[in-house]
């Protein structure tokens, strides 16, 4: 299977040299959903940011390749890279409350880039936005287009951001914990919606989350990340049947289940953590040599 996004040995460092991502490699096949799981601070979001070129200024890519649709983004000059990303990829952000510009109406926030970056006509962009808002089940899209973000609920705003992400028909979408900031009752609907949209549009999706339950519902493949290092990359089915890495197994065992809500939670044991920490240390030592 040909991968649409292929990350090879990507390393990201803080300006002071401490590693954030340690030679990360992963592949997202065209039209497939790849989950990226790990605990907070493992560097999940940083992978997405590195691909989209939105790493915080304190971080920089110190090595590796990011192949997007057959082109290594890292080899492109910045302006060309930005244009390429804008035309082929899109982001579904984590917090819908802060991801829309509060001083702009919804309509332009969806349509402007179609006109500015992709050269669509205003009418086409307008029609496209209306169509997509309908697809994400926004009632009365024409009215919502004239609303300001503060006039809409969090769930509505996340639907709008999803519509906006699909607007330019990107071939890759990076969803960065798209349901974490939402109310639990809304989370499921949004997850369902992202999965539906992905299937309908055949977009490759890199799904960043800390929730293995979510991964099991929407992903085809996944990578488990610990301290900026991929400890296991696997196909979904195999992973849940038979995780190979001890850390993956422990993570899987730590996931609470609905079938036994009273069962006690199993934390990841110190033994497993020591093991994976040793691997990371080994990796750093190999690098240093």
């Amino acid at each position, binding site marked *: 299977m040909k991968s649409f996004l292929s990350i090879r040995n990507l390393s990201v460092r803080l300006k002071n040299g401490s590693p954030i991502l340690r030679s990360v490699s992963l592949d997202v096949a065209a039209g497939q959903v790849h989950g990226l799981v790990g605990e907070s601070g493992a560097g999940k979001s940083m992978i997405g940011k590195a691909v*989209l*070129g*939105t790493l*915080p*200024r304190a971080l920089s890519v110190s090595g590796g390749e990011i192949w997007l649709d057959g082109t290594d983004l890292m080899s492109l000059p910045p*302006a060309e890279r*930005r*244009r390429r*990303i*804008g*035309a082929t*990829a*899109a*982001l579904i*952000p*984590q*917090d819908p409350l*802060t*991801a*829309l*510009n*509060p*001083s*702009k109406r919804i309509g332009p926030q969806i349509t402007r*880039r179609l006109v*500015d*970056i992709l050269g669509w006509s205003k009418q086409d962009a307008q029609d496209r936005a209306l169509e997509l808002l309908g697809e994400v089940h926004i009632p009365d899209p024409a009215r919502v287009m004239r609303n*300001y973000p*503060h006039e809409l609920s969090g769930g509505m705003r996340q639907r709008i*951001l999803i519509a906006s992400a699909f607007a330019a028909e990107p071939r890759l979408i990076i969803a960065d914990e798209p349901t974490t900031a939402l109310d639990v009752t809304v989370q499921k609907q949004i997850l369902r919606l992202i999965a539906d949209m992905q299937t309908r549009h055949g977009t490759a999706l890199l799904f960043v989350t800390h929730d293995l339950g979510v991964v099991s519902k929407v992903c085809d493949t996944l990578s488990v990340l610990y301290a900026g290092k991929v400890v296991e990359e696997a196909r979904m089915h195999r992973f849940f049947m038979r995780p190979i890495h001890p850390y993956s197994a422990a993570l899987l065992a730590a996931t609470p289940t609905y079938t036994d809500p009273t069962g006690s939670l199993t934390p990841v044991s110190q033994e497993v953590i020591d093991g994976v920490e040793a691997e990371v240390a080994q990796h750093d030592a190999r690098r240093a040599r």
Partner: protein
Amino acid sequence: MTLLRTIFLRLLTTAITLFGVAVIVFVVIRVVPGNPIAMMLPPGATEADIARLQAQYGFDKSIFDQFLIWLSGVLQGDFGTSISLRQPVSKLVLNRLPATLELSIMALLMAVLMGVTLALIGTRFRDGKTEGVVDVTAGMALSIPDFLWGLVLILLFGVFWPVFHISGRISPALNVDFTTNFYLFEAIARLRFDVMADLAAHMFMPALALAIPLAAIVSQLLKQSLKETMHLDYVTLARTKGYGENHVITREALPNAILPTLTLVGVQFTFLIGGTVIIERLFSYEGLGNMAIDAVINRDLPLIQGIVILFAMLFTLVNLAVDMLYVVLNPRLRHA
């Protein structure tokens, strides 16, 4: 509806404020030493002359009675007669107001233009040498007061490189028939470019002197606010859409980051109007401030009262205008 209510309440508080200002000014300038009558009489005037003049101007009555007489006049639009110039105060003051307004507005425009430009440059090249240069420039501009900037500018553009006029408002040789005292606005409306150029050459230095400290404040506050906004999610999202740094700063961040700056500019603009008093004196600019200083020197009590009340009205109007503008620019407040 609620907007109208807000405006009405503001006008009411404005009236109360103005009354308070009137009381304080009225009492203070009568309590401090210095007698307008003494300024008018030749040396060797008799006690009888003094008493006669005092009665003529009403200074023989108690301060309270004087205030009531003055207030009843004001409520009918009569601000009294200037002692030194022997003309109605309202006419004198309204004749000079346009000059001061033009100067202040020009200074405000220059300050916003310079401040926003500096802030944008500082943000575009943030965390580098260029931002350091912006910070040092703003720090210097801010730590020197406007009247000293006035002197610096006179040295620069009046003495070493004399390209601008250092005194007055317009060249007398120009001999234009103005229908209003808004010379600059009228010149613009009548497309008299020669007059515009002459007025600008007179106004440039005093306006710049007033503008420099305000520009520094605007640039520092706006840059800080922009830098914070640049970390927000909607800015990041705009980047992933393929927009470059310049677009992201001016289109995504600026409309939101400018809001706190706006409130501050409103407050600072009133300080700027206050600054015109000394600056107009420095550049012999025929405005209200210059007249205010003459009025104080001559102990021209009615004129001082008139000018102070007018300044107070200006300040409250500016604050009201800023509040309105804030509502217009911030969609979150529009329906509230």
